[in-house]
């Protein structure tokens, strides 16, 4: 992600107007209590608009399943060597919802140590991935974006692109604790955009990042391919945040199954084996 603060990026006036329609408690300076800045968001979305509308061919299905207001958790798969999935979901929550919503992710901890990246991610509401942050954002009725596969998910190689690695369980306890509906999300095509052949872990460590993905053309610059985002119907879990691990694991498997089903449909659409009218997102 290019830190927009470094570059005098233009801000599209139409996008800036749309940013002001995001329903957050802005102060006179256009900043919310978490330090999210309307001007930085406008720059971000202006930049993302190019990639979302022109560079990639992003197709969004079932955006009506994302609640227009109130707390909700977008739970998705990782696809693509870095957080392309998160960035495109952030773009789709802004461009395809009305009113637009800010999807707030739980950023990797190393980001806060990097100059500019720390600054920029803080101003666009991508806080460090801490349970305290997740609980607080949901209690404030925000839209939280969670990838239970974690960094192991972005490290998937090309041949593993439609698979799911092990899910963390924290998001289920979080949903039960805060009574938050879970919207399962599938992101398909990230593996084609960034076909990782290998990951350099040692080199990554030198730069303070978990790993550096390598594609057949070297750097992980994405190809302009079709990307699909499929939002499934919200799931409201019944139970208690203090339930035992085996109960929680069943909830996790249910969510994981839903996401896998959405990925399969996205893949079938790509392969022409399924028509858009035959999609089952419920």
């Amino acid at each position, binding site marked *: 992600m290019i830190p927009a603060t470094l570059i005098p990026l233009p801000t599209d006036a139409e996008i800036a107007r749309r940013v002001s329609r995001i329903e957050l408690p802005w102060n006179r300076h256009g*900043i919310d209590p978490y330090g999210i800045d309307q001007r930085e968001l406008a720059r971000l979305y202006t930049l993302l608009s190019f990639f979302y509308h022109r560079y990639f061919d992003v197709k969004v299905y079932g955006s009506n399943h994302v609640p227009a207001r109130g707390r909700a958790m977008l739970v998705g798969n990782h696809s693509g060597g870095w957080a392309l999935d998160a960035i495109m979901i952030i773009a789709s929550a802004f461009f395809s919802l009305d009113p637009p919503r800010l999807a707030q992710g739980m950023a990797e901890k190393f980001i806060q*140590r990097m100059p500019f990246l720390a600054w920029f991610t803080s101003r666009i509401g991508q806080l460090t991935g801490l349970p305290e942050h997740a609980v607080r954002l949901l209690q404030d009725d925000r839209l939280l974006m969670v990838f239970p596969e974690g960094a192991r998910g972005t490290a998937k190689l090309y041949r593993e692109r439609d698979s799911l690695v092990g899910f963390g369980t924290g998001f289920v306890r979080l949903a039960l604790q805060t009574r938050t509906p879970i919207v399962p999300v599938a992101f398909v095509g990230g593996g084609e955009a960034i076909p990782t052949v290998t990951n350099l872990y040692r080199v990554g460590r030198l730069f303070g990042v978990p790993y550096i993905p390598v594609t057949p053309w070297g750097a992980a610059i994405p190809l302009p391919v079709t990307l699909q985002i499929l939002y499934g119907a919200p799931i409201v879990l019944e139970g208690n945040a203090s339930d035992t691990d085996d109960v929680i694991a069943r909830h996790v498997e249910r969510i994981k199954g839903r996401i896998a089903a959405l990925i399969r449909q996205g893949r079938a659409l790509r392969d022409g084996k399924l028509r858009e009218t035959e999609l089952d997102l419920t």
Partner: protein
Amino acid sequence: MKVLITGISGALAREVTRRVVERGHEVVGIDVRPWYHPPEGVRVIQTDIRKRPAEEVFRSFRPDALVHMATVTHLTHRSRDRYRINLGGTQAVFEHCAHYGVKQALFVGRHTYYGAGPDSPLYHTESEPPMAVHTFAELSDLVAADLYAGSALWRYPRIDTAVLRLCYTLGPFRQGTLAAFLKGPRVPTVLGFDPLFHFIHELDAAAAIVLSLEARLRGVFNVSGPPPVPLSVIIRETGRSPVPLPEALIRPLLGRFGLPRLPPGALEHVKYPVVIDSSAFRKATGFAPQFDEDATMAAFREAG
């Protein structure tokens, strides 16, 4: 009510004194620094809180309540003595409280207790332990004093003890950690970082302390004013100019060219936010700040 205020000559403590007197209470103060013209009826004993004359104040005045504001930061006190003032002084006044039947003790601490770091959460709650003492040694005595004061809750259960973790104060007095950082026309920032800063108007801070006293608060409470603001906005709104410096360069440059002097650990507090959740305090006292972030920054700017 008879109220003893330690550290009474500080700007915030003076404002607290005025308000406490106004509400009909009797005030005696202790401070090593003089207060030449205190409000009528207020007696200021110029001594160290760890010394014999300070104990004599407890013995003769027999206060009902203590407001302990005699802690110092690295900004005002550079010597090793700071540790003894903060921790030894706090220990002394709490022992006197227990011995001379003081019913209520209010420790005015700081929100920097929580520390700043890349993986610390925004909006700290009172139950969190201090996480960054190792990166900022100059804070350790204040953290220890805070925890010691809190331990009075079980050590001396008959005293209603309250520990206030007050965020930075800002306003016309131009005193305190944040005011010292913003003192000059140029304010150093760490290139590539722009943390949120949490502050409260000085008059709101004084009001919150008086409210805690009258509510006879018990427990540990974060106290903050309006929502936090990025440092860059504070610098702009107070009419300063930022001097962004790469982290590697900033250490040797501090204290020179009109930039403020800071201990190395303080840099973490210029890179990362310390933001607190004060909902428990607001619920317990009904406190609502009178000054928003813009009025507070303007009050500081216009004062000088």
